[in-house]
């Protein structure tokens, strides 16, 4: 191979799976990570005034998981055959398991959310109002009597059971994403044991950032009582600490990944070159490292900064941009490495799919905002206490 080689004829294969699937992977990691951070924090605090944040961390991931299959379906050659993946099941394929894991994850989030909102929904259904009928429908016509405390007590075991189930599926979902990419043994950049850790760190970083951003947004848009806002700011400042350490963990995981790539033959060295000095160097250094890791780390470094809603939201947005860039870098970058020739594989422009993805994201965001106005995120007693 020391002699010079000139390529006369070859076939360029291109990047096969584009932005929509990268988005899909990122949104799933975001949903799973958000629920993991929200629920593990509940296990730590076990405080009633934490419940509004647990609702955000369970119901918003449900919305994401309910809409995210659209990204996959839009990318299929035969979208009308999507449902056949449930019964044409091939046991050696991680995707075959993933279809069930993500579906069960979504269902468990829905049931967990139902129990989280149920006491407030029952109380709201009792009151006269324009949405009382909707609340009655959401609690399936339940006419259970008693105070909020009694309602909470009566459903506590079921609520905790479904919380545990949804947490289990969240972990399974993140592990699935890692296993999915590492199962492509021909793709040197993906076929790494670090994939599970990459998605876990991306999930936790994105999850804590998402919780911070969405809760601040909720407090801005919904009629949140002043008492609840002050309580939630305390938790949000502590989510800032989780974000700070998850950014450190993410940096460590990427460092180990790049070191491992350096010692995985020529292909591995090419993979690390791709990120550090190659075609994805700008996305890596600017979006992933500077915007996604360094900036949010600095913004969450000091308590005084973490407690400011604007600064915390900015840090959260930056961290989300960084995690998206990280997933895209590893996903699209992994396909850029040539399999049969000597040039980087290129992704053909996909304007239609990009527009579809953006519209779906806008719809998703719109659904978040609508639910803030409709659903009782705050505890009933806090709302009764007034602003």
């Amino acid at each position, binding site marked *: 191979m020391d002699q010079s*080689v000139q390529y006369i*004829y070859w076939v360029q294969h291109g990047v096969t799976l584009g932005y929509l699937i990268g988005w899909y992977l990122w949104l799933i990691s975001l949903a799973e990570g958000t629920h993991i951070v929200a629920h593990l924090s509940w296990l730590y605090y076990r405080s009633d005034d934490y419940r509004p944040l647990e609702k955000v961390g369970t119901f918003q991931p449900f919305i994401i998981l309910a809409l995210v299959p659209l990204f996959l379906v839009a990318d299929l050659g035969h979208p009308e*055959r999507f449902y056949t*993946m449930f019964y044409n*099941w091939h046991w050696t394929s991680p*995707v075959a398991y993933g279809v069930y894991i993500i579906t069960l994850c979504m269902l468990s989030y829905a049931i967990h959310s139902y129990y989280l909102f149920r006491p407030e929904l029952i109380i709201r259904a009792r009151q006269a109002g324009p949405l009382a009928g909707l609340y009655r429908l959401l609690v399936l016509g339940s006419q259970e009597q008693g105070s909020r405390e009694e309602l909470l007590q009566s459903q506590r075991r079921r609520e905790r059971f479904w919380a545990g189930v949804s947490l289990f599926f969240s972990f399974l979902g993140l592990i699935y994403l890692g296993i999915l990419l590492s199962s492509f043994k021909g793709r040197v950049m993906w076929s790494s044991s670090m994939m599970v850790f990459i998605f876990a760190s991306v999930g936790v970083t994105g999850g804590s950032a998402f919780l911070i951003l969405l809760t601040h947004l909720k407090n801005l848009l919904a009629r949140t009582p002043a008492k609840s806002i002050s309580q939630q700011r305390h938790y949000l400042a502590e989510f800032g600490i989780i974000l700070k350490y998850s950014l450190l963990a993410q940096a460590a995981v990427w460092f180990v990944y790049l070191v491992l790539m350096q010692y995985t033959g*020529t292909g591995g060295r090419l993979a690390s*070159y791709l990120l550090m000095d190659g075609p994805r160097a700008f996305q890596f250094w600017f979006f992933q490292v500077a915007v996604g890791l360094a900036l949010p780390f600095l913004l969450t470094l000091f308590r005084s900064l973490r407690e400011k809603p604007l600064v915390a939201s900015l840090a959260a947005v930056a961290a989300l941009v960084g995690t998206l860039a990280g997933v895209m870098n590893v996903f699209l970058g992994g396909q850029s490495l040539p399999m049969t020739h*000597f040039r980087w594989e290129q992704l053909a422009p996909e304007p239609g799919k990009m527009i579809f993805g953006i519209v779906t994201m806008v719809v998703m965001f719109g659904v978040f905002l609508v639910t803030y106005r409709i659903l009782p995120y705050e505890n009933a007693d806090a709302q009764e206490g007034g602003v």
Partner: protein
Amino acid sequence: MAEPKKMMDRRRFLKNLGLRATALGAGAVLVQAPSLARATGRPKKYGMVIDTNRCLACHGCTIACTSENNVPDGFYRSWVKIIEKGQYPEVSSHFLPRLCNNCEDAPCLNLCPTGATYRTKEDGVVHVNRDICVGCRICVEACPYGSRFVNPLTNTADKCDFCYHRISKGLEPACVDACTGRARIFGDLNDPSSAVSRYMGGKSTQRLRADLDTKPKIHYLYADEAIMGPDYTQLLARR
């Protein structure tokens, strides 16, 4: 009272007879199993040997394949990679006919979520069932040889299946038929008397990306190392 005793004897007789017949049958099967297996032989393992010294890079195989299988423009089930190596006056040209390896441990088959990619048991050829393929392109990504693509006419995965419609009628694949230099020899790798087995003889063959242990069934003879895999050194050299 004698009659019931007689009935019981007959029942016991029939029971003993049945047991002995079953034991005899099972014994006969066990004794004859190896010889039966030898008689039926191992299942076929269709494969190909490509003698790169015989390849002229005429692209006859590419054209034959495209017309035989109605492959759309810009996509290939079979193609020829060409490189030139060295510097004047010591320059050599190398050709590598490419097609799906129909691997024994095919990553595309393992990762297909619906089982649309399957292998026929009787001959080991890897196929795509277009009726259940969802067009997810997982298999295209999984193939380490770049041998798959999504056919824009059917929106399903597509690849070489050794012209199964031809070989199941006893014909040779279109690329083998069209090969000017007779570089491609196709047949049953499990049959020592087949043309492909005889051509390979005791020769040591090369297979693409042997490090991945996918057990490709396309064997190459006399291929230059520089043409066999992806060339990362050129990309790294730009560093």
